[in-house]
């Protein structure tokens, strides 16, 4: 038997904008109103009309104190909601992602969590491929179907504030200091960041080493080779 087709479009499509395909009588038949009427003994089933609300006798309508001269539109308060970017269905905690831009282009990286700003929190792990805990935009990422078990990793302490640059106070330069070459203020990575990296990575590494070849996979970079067609590749 031919399979039953589920309804795809409107029952009465537009032939030309403004002109429908079927007449009123045809539509009456198509909607099955004749069948509904037959089911209910010749009459179309109706709801009883709701009784009109009785006017309150105790409080008579008072005349308003103020009549505005012009018609003023009533504005409705619309609370603005800022949601983080919608996460692609293929990206779940523990997914291996391929970074497509930036210093770590081509690196395969583990996805940890989406931050409230919408950016993705990822880590190399650092020992495996040199990618630290960093934020990455979803648009610059290919999600593979490989997942790492991330249940033992705690990522609750990372948020967008963790990653903002620290403000360095600029002291006013005197004339003498102006001509001195700016001493290179090397930004040293604070120890707490190194500790955080270690904490996340040790838990992750155990999960990664449980899967054969996964560690070498993460330490290798992705590149397109001859014959690889990205639109036909399964990631």
């Amino acid at each position, binding site marked *: 038997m*031919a399979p039953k087709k589920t309804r795809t479009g409107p029952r009465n499509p537009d032939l030309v904008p403004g002109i429908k395909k079927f007449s009123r009588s045809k539509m009456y038949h198509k909607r099955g109103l004749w069948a509904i009427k037959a089911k209910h003994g010749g009459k179309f089933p109706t709801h009883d009309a709701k009784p009109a609300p009785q006017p309150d006798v105790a409080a008579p309508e008072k005349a308003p104190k103020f009549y505005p001269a012009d018609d003023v539109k009533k504005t409705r308060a619309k609370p603005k909601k800022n949601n983080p970017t919608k996460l692609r269905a293929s990206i779940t905690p523990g997914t291996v992602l391929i970074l497509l831009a930036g210093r770590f282009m081509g690196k*395969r990286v583990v996805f940890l969590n989406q931050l409230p700003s919408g950016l993705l929190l990822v880590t190399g792990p650092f020992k495996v491929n040199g990618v630290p805990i960093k934020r990455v935009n979803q648009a610059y990422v290919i999600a*593979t179907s*490989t997942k790492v078990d991330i249940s033992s990793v705690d990522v609750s302490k990372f948020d967008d504030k963790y990653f903002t640059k620290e403000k360095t106070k600029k002291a006013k330069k005197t004339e003498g200091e102006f001509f001195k070459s700016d001493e290179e203020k090397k930004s040293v990575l604070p120890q707490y960041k190194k500790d955080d990296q270690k904490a996340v990575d040790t838990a992750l590494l155990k999960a990664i080493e449980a899967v054969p*070849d996964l560690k*070498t996979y993460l330490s290798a970079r992705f590149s397109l080779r001859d014959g690889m067609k990205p639109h036909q590749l*399964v990631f």
Partner: protein
Amino acid sequence: MTFKRFVEIGRVALVNYGKEYGRLVVIVDVVDQNRALIDAPDMVRCQINFKRLSLTDIKIDIPRIPKKKTLIAAMEEADVKNKWEKSSWGRKLIVQQRRASLNDFDRFKVMLARIKRGGVIRQELARLKKENAA
């Protein structure tokens, strides 16, 4: 240069174009010079142009336009599925499909395996060369 695969009732063919691309079907009737009626166990019987078919070596014994039950029974009897999967054409197709469905990690593992295999072959070759030289 004689023809070996004919369009006949019961000829198993592969659809090579269109919505049913890649499906193994059986020719159950000929409509006219250009079209045939085809059928498969999990498909609604339909007509198709011969140009969209690639004939295979397999032929089954069926009457003209058999009922689905008869068709399935005849295909089981002739063991079409196994014959196809054992044939070199069928095996190639299976490999193609497997390669196309590999994910990025799988492709990486395949690369490691090929390098390993190449290494073993080269070692063996070097050993044989040494033996021959000696």
